């Protein structure tokens, strides 16, 4: 009898913890303070205005009109068409703006067959200005590449084009367009600063 009572008491004491199981939280249930609080709980003091407005897009250039296929080529089964990839990077920064355009082409008419070179352009549709990025030749297979680096920002441009130019071209204007792509417009988050947060509220006039 005594043993029975003792056993019941011990079992009762041990089962007390089961009462709090629903609400009890172990230390493992609490994330450390370094864990990211995502969603609506996220607290951030990040202000995108402290960063320079940066653009990095990859556009795919294609022919401006219908393509006349020259054939599948030796042993090939798929029709090929001239195409290119352009990676455009631009940083708007008063101090040291850096921009970069990398173009790689495929299946252009080779320069030896075209009897000419290719020239890459950035075009601004609003003003009609065309910025020449330089010339390059296409090898057999239509492979060509161009790297353009400039201390400038390229936000204003809407279209990237590749034109065909004669060898040793002394005319700066563009020839027939071979490849074209539109550049997605930049959508920078540039909120109006609060006048109460400005040290010099009169500087707001510059925005």
């Amino acid at each position, binding site marked *: 009898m005594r043993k029975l009572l003792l056993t019941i008491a011990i079992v009762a004491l041990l089962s007390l913890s089961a009462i709090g199981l629903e609400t009890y939280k172990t230390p493992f249930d609490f994330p450390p303070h370094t864990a990211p609080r995502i969603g609506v709980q996220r607290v951030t003091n990040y202000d995108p205005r402290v960063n320079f407005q940066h653009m990095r897009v990859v556009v795919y250039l294609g022919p401006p009109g219908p393509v006349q296929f020259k054939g599948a080529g030796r042993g090939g089964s798929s029709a090929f068409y001239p195409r290119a990839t352009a990676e455009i990077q631009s940083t*708007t920064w*008063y*101090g*040291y*703006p850096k921009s970069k355009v990398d173009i790689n082409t495929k299946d252009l008419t080779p*320069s030896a*067959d*075209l*009897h*000419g*070179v290719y*020239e890459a352009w950035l075009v*601004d549709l*609003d*003003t009609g*200005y*065309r*910025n*020449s*990025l*330089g*010339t*390059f*030749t296409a090898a057999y297979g239509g492979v060509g590449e*161009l*790297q*353009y*680096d*400039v*201390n*400038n*920002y390229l*936000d*204003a*441009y809407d279209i990237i084009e590749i034109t*065909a*130019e*004669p*060898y*040793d*071209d*002394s*005319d*700066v*204007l563009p*020839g*027939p367009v071979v490849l074209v792509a539109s550049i997605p417009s930049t959508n920078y988050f540039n909120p109006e600063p609060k006048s109460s947060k400005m040290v010099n509220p009169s500087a707001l006039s*510059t925005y």
Partner: protein
Amino acid sequence: MIVAVSILKRCIVRIVFPVLIIALFLVSIVAALPTFQVYDNNIDSYAGQIARDRRIFDPYTRDRYFGADYYRPYQNFGQKGPTNMLLNTGAKSAYSSVFNLDTNSMTNEGRNPGRISNWDPKVRGYPRLDKSVSLLPYDPVEQSLAQTPVLAQGTARLLSIGDVYGSGMDKPFPQTQIQIVLQNIPPSDDNEIYEAWLLDDETGYALNLGIMKPAAKTTAELLFTIPRMVYMFEHVIITKEPFPDEDPRPGEIILAGNIDPARSQLTINPSYFERLR
């Protein structure tokens, strides 16, 4: 019979074998002696034991080719014309192909207008354009720095190497490097910035070279490389632009300079002869 065989065996083992071995040894020595010093006629190798031996035992290698009695013929010495044997060569170098001008003048004729020359600057082995351009105010304004009147000015250097045919750089990738330094430029606001351009007279097209942030308010510099040739442009201009600028066209011209063509530069457009196919 058995005794005779054993004597013969002993004789072979004790006398014939040693004699044979000694004879073989002597024959190989005698056979190797003539070629002990120079045992090759291979002139292509410059390293290894063969070449080392050759250098030690036969340092005057030219005798092998010409013989000891050879002397260099005293002909065609100091002439730039073709040799007497090969009439289509002469004065060959990395810079000229064939010396077949109808002159054999050895003197520098300088500015002699009667000088006959078939030199074509377009076919040089190393096509390059190296021009320095002085930049002066387009609309001169009175400026003074510490009560001293100053003139805004600048220098641009255009250096083109290579052409679309692949000469000069071994690859058809022409490159132009443009270096611009400005001084005493009028100070600009924080929302204004200078921008450099190449200007073409015929079409009025301006090629953007990049923006120039004033370093110490009155000086600015730019180093820009573009993969194209720029000999078709006539001017270098520096403009003042708002920052940031939605309009990529050139604004108000601050400085301008002319790229003067050199006397030796051929200005014919080669695309007149070669059209796009």
